[in-house]
């Protein structure tokens, strides 16, 4: 638990912004939770005031009693509102990478080690609609919250709010949290533009076009270990020996995506364009490599390679002038 000095406790910033960025997990306790009446609560207070004035005017003891009952109920409900937040544990989960301009989804893990069920816990990020979650004792849930992105790079979730108006909506308890955890934001894909370098056809020692999964090459006899998905079932139906469809062409075309090919654009546009090319190359099942100032990613393909390339683009920083 974080200890706060007296001066810290009375800082207004703590009230409006929370404690700043910190690593998770964070347990909500007294020093983090604030409570104020909601507009409904203020309206209720007005109703109570009118009731009390009426009771005084009519000298009606039952009226007094009823007004006091409702007032006390509102006071007691503060504890219930507080208890609905207190003790919850929050930590950041994974964040799936997105392209700039998309909404970045962050997973937040909420667990409830307390013996009470916590209802309608609302997680609010920026101007997004709140995400509500109920948690039974001892349970943990993962909630995905979204934050819009504008530019590439590592996007932190930033400050978010967890709040609750349980049980009666008269009071709102909230805590501001800002946990470590970033989402990789790839550059926004640029316009479709032909790749300046044509794909290089490279002969391959394992065959004319190599072996792969792309283009049908020929039939060959079945060997144990071959995937049944590649079996030529029609031949089986004709009671011929088992045949396997051989594909090839995987390693046929190789492509360098080079920063230096895009001299006419500024940095961000170049990165967007490279991003587009990475996506296109991956889609066309090409082997591609990425060439950036101060960084070179070797020929490869597959979603992991694609991620590495896009991440490199996302986090690219132009080295000090010398190279270009």
């Amino acid at each position, binding site marked *: 638990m974080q200890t706060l000095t007296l001066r810290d406790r009375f800082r207004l910033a703590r009230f409006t912004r929370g404690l700043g960025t910190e690593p998770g997990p964070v347990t909500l306790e007294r020093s983090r939770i604030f409570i104020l009446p909601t507009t409904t609560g203020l309206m209720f207070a007005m109703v109570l005031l009118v009731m009390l004035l009426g009771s005084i005017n009519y*000298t009606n003891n039952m009226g007094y009693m009823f007004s006091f009952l409702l007032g006390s109920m509102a006071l007691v409900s503060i504890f*219930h509102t507080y208890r609905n937040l207190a003790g919850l544990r929050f930590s950041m989960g994974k964040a799936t990478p997105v392209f700039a301009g998309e909404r970045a989804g962050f997973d937040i893990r909420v667990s409830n080690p307390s013996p*009470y069920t916590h209802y309608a816990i609302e997680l609010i990020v920026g101007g997004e609609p709140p995400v509500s979650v109920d948690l039974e004792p001892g349970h943990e849930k993962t909630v995905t919250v979204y934050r819009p992105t504008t530019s590439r790079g590592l996007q932190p979730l930033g400050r978010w709010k967890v709040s609750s108006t349980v049980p009666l909506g008269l009071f709102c308890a909230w805590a501001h949290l800002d946990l470590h955890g970033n989402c990789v934001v790839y550059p926004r894909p640029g316009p479709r533009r032909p790749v300046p370098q044509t794909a290089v056809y490279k002969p391959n020692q394992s065959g004319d076009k190599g072996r792969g999964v792309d283009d049908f090459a020929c039939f060959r006899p079945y060997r144990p270990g071959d995937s049944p998905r590649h079996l030529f079932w029609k031949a089986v139906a004709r009671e011929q020996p088992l045949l396997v469809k051989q594909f090839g062409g995987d390693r046929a075309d190789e492509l360098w995506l080079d920063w230096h090919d895009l001299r006419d654009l500024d940095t961000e546009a170049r990165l967007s364009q490279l991003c587009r090319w990475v996506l296109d190359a991956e889609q066309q099942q090409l082997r591609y490599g990425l060439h950036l100032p101060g960084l070179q990613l070797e020929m490869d393909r597959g979603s992991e390679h694609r991620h590495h390339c896009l991440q490199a683009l996302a986090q690219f920083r132009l080295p000090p002038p010398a190279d270009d």
Partner: protein
Amino acid sequence: MTDPSLTVRSRSWLLVSTGLALLPHAWHLPVWVTVFVVGIGLLYRYTLQAPQHTVPRFLVLALTLAGAAGVLWQYGTLLGRNAGVTLLVIMLSLKLLEAQRPRDARLVIFTSYFVVITNFLFTETPLIALYMFAITIVITATLSVVTHDSDIRPAHNHLRLAGTLLLQALPVMLVLFIFFPRIIGPIWGLPKDAHAGVTGLSGSMSPGAISRLVESGATAFRASFSGPVPAPEQRYWRGPVLWKTDGRTWTTGAFVLLAPASKALLQPQGDPVQQEITLESHNKRWLLALDRPYAISIPATRTVGSEWLAPKAVRERIRYAVTSYTDYRTGDLNPVLRKAALQLPENLSERLRELAQHWRHNASDRAVIRKALEYFHNEPFIYTLTPPPLDEDPMDEFLFETRRGFCEHYTAAFVLLMRSAGIPARVVTGYQGGEYNPVGEYMLVRQSDAHAWAEVWLPDTGWERVDPTAAVAPERIEHALDLSAQDSGAPVRFRLIEGGLLSSGLRGLRYALDTLNNSWNQWVLSYGPGRQRELLAALGMQQANWKAMVLVLAGLISVFLLGIAAWMFLRKPHRSDPVVQVWNTYCRRLGQLGMQRKPWEGPRDYSRRVAAYRPELASQVNPITDIYIRLRYDNPENPTGLLTQLQRRVRQYTGRAKRKRTPPDKPAD
């Protein structure tokens, strides 16, 4: 933020809670309002059945106008207590039709709370208070439902939550009720009809006035005695004294007759009767007390008629102590009063005057009184609640023609006869009798005990009470009227002593219920600025000022709120699983032997460690562990049997361990 539409579930809750809040008003609102509101409720129910069932806006508007017009037609105004409450009831039901979003729903709920509180303007019995508490739980649960419209907690969950909240609110409510600084209301003017429907003696009397009052079974006041309860023939409770008559109506007369009078008016004889009276609100200044009241505990003035008047009309239940003397003399009659006590209407009939003169002929005052009473007793007079109507000269017609009347007829005729014979006389209205409640040890006097009697002034003793009704119907003094068995024009029947087990059982129940009502009145409803001062003085705050009271209030509220917080947050959560309980006992026991279970250690590992450390325990530890694992992680066929087995084994084990409570070997870990 956008407000989504309410779910059908929330709207059903709204319908139920609003209906419950409106229900008690059905007793005192005009029938058409009830029909109107029930109709709207049915319309709302219809809209719940399918989403396409909607109520067009113009219809809501039309109904609103119709409701307002109806109130205007009924009361002639939209303001005031009755009209205001009726309007509120109608508008709440109409608002229900419009409740589409949580915000509207909250408005409906807050208005429902308000409708509940307005009900206390009409009735304040403990039963209604209980009902209101129950309704408040439902309304609060509805607030919880509409606030979290989307979650799917079951209904009882919301009800339990609301119940918990309200029960936890009770202590703080009591503190506020007792210590919140009370001021004497009203702060501003009350509507004219604020005290409508209050019954009681009016301060004037005309034929039929008392018999109308007698039909009300409402409580007039309750009296408790510190000494013995006075005998039935002494239970005359003094109210307005009437001097002036126009032949039909009797009134208090000139202002001077209500002016303060000296204490010397009354010379007590015999023992005083101490009584404490809780007077219901009757909207008049008279403070009822046993005849003759001598001293009173609250600020009040004594009139020349020995009435006690409060400074202001009694508009709430008040309590005061009175010292009365049933045996007394009064002093001289000054000329002003003598004149007032001999005043006769201008159109007094000749027959009446002649009758009085005939009795007077050389007879003493007492002889005249005796003759008058004999006249009532011997002539065929009938004591009835429903006498025939009297026209031009009511007293003449009554005395010589109809001869049927209630106490006001006899008293008025008697006083007129006395005055005609030159004896100063006046009419006293009040109550006679009362029912003693042995459970609460007090006397309950109802409006049906209302009575009128005469007082004559005699030179030797002063004012003396004469009850002409007793000459006609002596039973009246001993028994209450039996209102359930009155026939039109027939003589009055009296409630004689009821026999039988059932009726005595019922009577006991009635006494108990009225005692409850009385305690409620004493301790809850009549708690006001005066009682608060007394209480604070008893607590050592003699000169309680506002500042001190607010401090005490704030302090006590904080203490109680902290208590509730402590109860909520420090309470160990209730472990309902008996298997876990037994297992924890067992682990604690082993822990005392120096083998605490590590938090990460499963039962199997734990038992292995224990067996390795204390091999002699293995024969006991292993079966316990096995049963526990089966109960917790298997799905055994006979869990209860296994549980008892586990409990027995653990008990045996811990018991044995206790018996050889030699200091355990020094734990090695």
